[in-house]
């Protein structure tokens, strides 16, 4: 049975956490993810969860408490955004290095300076090499569903997972959603039975001691292998989820892409706006399509080039900037995968919506118009555009 509801993204994720009933949640509030520990502490106070809630004094402590609890053998979750995630940075590598299946909710927000509380993907993209699986979500429904699946993915892959969705746009917007029954979620996530944990009285182990050069190198390769193998785990867990809910998720979502001539790659909520634009272009017999990555870590490096190879022109949209004098992270990684697969499609990069600068259907249309021009002429004038700021655009 499913439950028809209307919730904001944060309410949806907090509800998923309540239904999962993890052993430990440690969190420190930061806009726009504050509501998650706020709602969750209510659940703790009114007894609807049996979770040990640790209200810590900083995000560094939040993830540290999560690491300790997870190493002890608990199922552990937290939530953060922006500066909070940045403050966790050194501990993120420890979470993944110790192979701890922590689920970290990230309501994406810009990084300072200048100070800004609104959405872009600078925070999660900034920690993209920390060894966390990263799942990106278009809507409150996807945020809810991915939170449920993340628990299982993390525990099977023995890697921590970030569930990323757009701050305010998704976190604070109330929309329709279909919830699962508590029993369905409990059955789906099951009981966490760690293979190795510190409080196992039958087996004395230590975690995180010094590695000399060769062991360190081997262990780091193990993490890389674990991430590579996580692709199959994500697919398996998603398949199982589809059997329970009827909602099918892959490593990425294609929208009218297979017969498209021009296409864009875009993450999270903007993909929804872009789907409406694809439909309006299709009505004019313009063969537009879209690809929305769900897993950015692991990157579907074999699959993506294959899905994009038939396009005459492609735009990869980045809601963060690598400030490398060139492009954003999604562009550099996907074009790199395309090059390695011998795929040569005319591809441009659009940085967009930094600091929550609103992205309208007309802005996406402008991207597709440029792609039509590129498809027609075969000429790429420049690689990287700043959507909405070109030609002295409105600030």
């Amino acid at each position: 049975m499913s439950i028809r509801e209307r919730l904001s993204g944060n309410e949806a994720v907090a509800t998923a956490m309540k239904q999962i009933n993890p052993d430990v949640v440690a969190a420190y509030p930061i806009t726009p993810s504050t509501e998650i520990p706020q709602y969750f502490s209510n659940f703790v106070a009114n007894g609807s969860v049996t979770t040990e809630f640790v209200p810590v004094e900083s995000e560094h402590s939040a993830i540290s408490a999560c690491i300790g609890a997870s190493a002890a053998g608990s199922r552990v979750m937290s939530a953060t955004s922006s500066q909070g995630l940045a403050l966790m940075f050194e501990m993120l590598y420890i979470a993944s290095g110790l192979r701890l299946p922590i689920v970290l909710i990230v309501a994406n927000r810009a990084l300072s300076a200048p100070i800004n509380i609104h959405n872009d993907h600078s925070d999660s993209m900034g920690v993209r090499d920390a060894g966390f699986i990263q799942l990106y979500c278009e809507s409150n429904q996807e945020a809810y569903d991915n939170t449920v699946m993340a628990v299982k993915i993390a525990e099977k892959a023995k890697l921590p997972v970030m569930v990323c969705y757009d701050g305010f746009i998704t976190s604070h917007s109330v929309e329709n959603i279909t919830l699962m029954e508590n029993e369905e979620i409990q059955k789906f996530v099951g009981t966490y039975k760690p293979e190795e944990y510190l409080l196992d009285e039958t087996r004395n182990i230590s975690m995180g001691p010094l590695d000399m050069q060769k062991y360190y190198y081997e262990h780091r390769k193990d993490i890389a292998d674990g991430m590579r193998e996580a692709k199959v785990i994500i697919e398996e867990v998603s398949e199982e989820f589809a059997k329970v809910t009827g909602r099918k998720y892959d490593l990425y979502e294609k929208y009218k892409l297979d017969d498209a001539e021009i296409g864009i790659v875009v993450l999270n909520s903007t993909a929804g706006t872009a789907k409406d634009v694809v439909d309006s272009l299709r009505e004019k017999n313009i063969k537009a399509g879209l690809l929305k990555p769900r897993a950015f870590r692991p990157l579907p490096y074999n699959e993506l080039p294959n899905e994009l190879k038939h396009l005459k022109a492609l735009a990869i949209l980045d809601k963060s900037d690598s400030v490398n004098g060139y492009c954003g992270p999604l562009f550099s990684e996907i074009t790199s995968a395309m090059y390695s697969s011998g795929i040569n499609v005319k591809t441009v990069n659009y940085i967009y919506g930094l600091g929550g600068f609103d992205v309208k259907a007309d802005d996406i249309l402008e991207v597709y118009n440029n792609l039509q021009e590129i498809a027609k002429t075969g000429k790429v004038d420049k690689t990287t555009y700043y959507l909405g700021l070109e030609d002295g655009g409105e600030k």
Partner: protein
Amino acid sequence: MIEIRWHGRGGQGAKTASLLLADAAFNTGKYIQGFPEYGPERMGAPITAYNRISETPIRVHSNIYEPNYVVIVDDSLIGSVNVLDGLKDDGAILINTNQDISTLREKLGNYTGRLYTIDATKISRELLKANYPNTAMLAAIVHIADIMSKDELLREMEGSFKHKFVRKPEVIAPNMEAVRRGFDEIVGG
């Protein structure tokens, strides 16, 4: 799809009103979005909130630039905020005010489109003994935008008030009266 933009001042409850409207429309089976535009919020500063209401799933995730309806919770915003910006030609504007229609048309740069007023502040003061114009505003916009019937609205609001005011049942009846009057006392067209 119906798109609505709310203009209010921080603390007046425009955001809450947009969420209440989303709730009511959701309960009649619609797909909805309700979201505020978060700025540097301060009590009294102009704020904006939005609603989308549709028979089919809503995918667009941008602010609303060409609303079907504009709702103004505080008439002192007219002149300092461009409340008519992008309003569709066949759209309408609803203002919480005690001013007459012709004065407002003039203040809105001789606006000739559909214009409605409701004195939600007066309704609230009379019934609730305080300035909570939301309830009457909500009923008025439901009427103007034909989001649901009066009976459906009354049923929805009664359910929601019973839940919200479980510890203050004495305020349910005056709030229901505010819904009725908000629905019925609209002026203009």
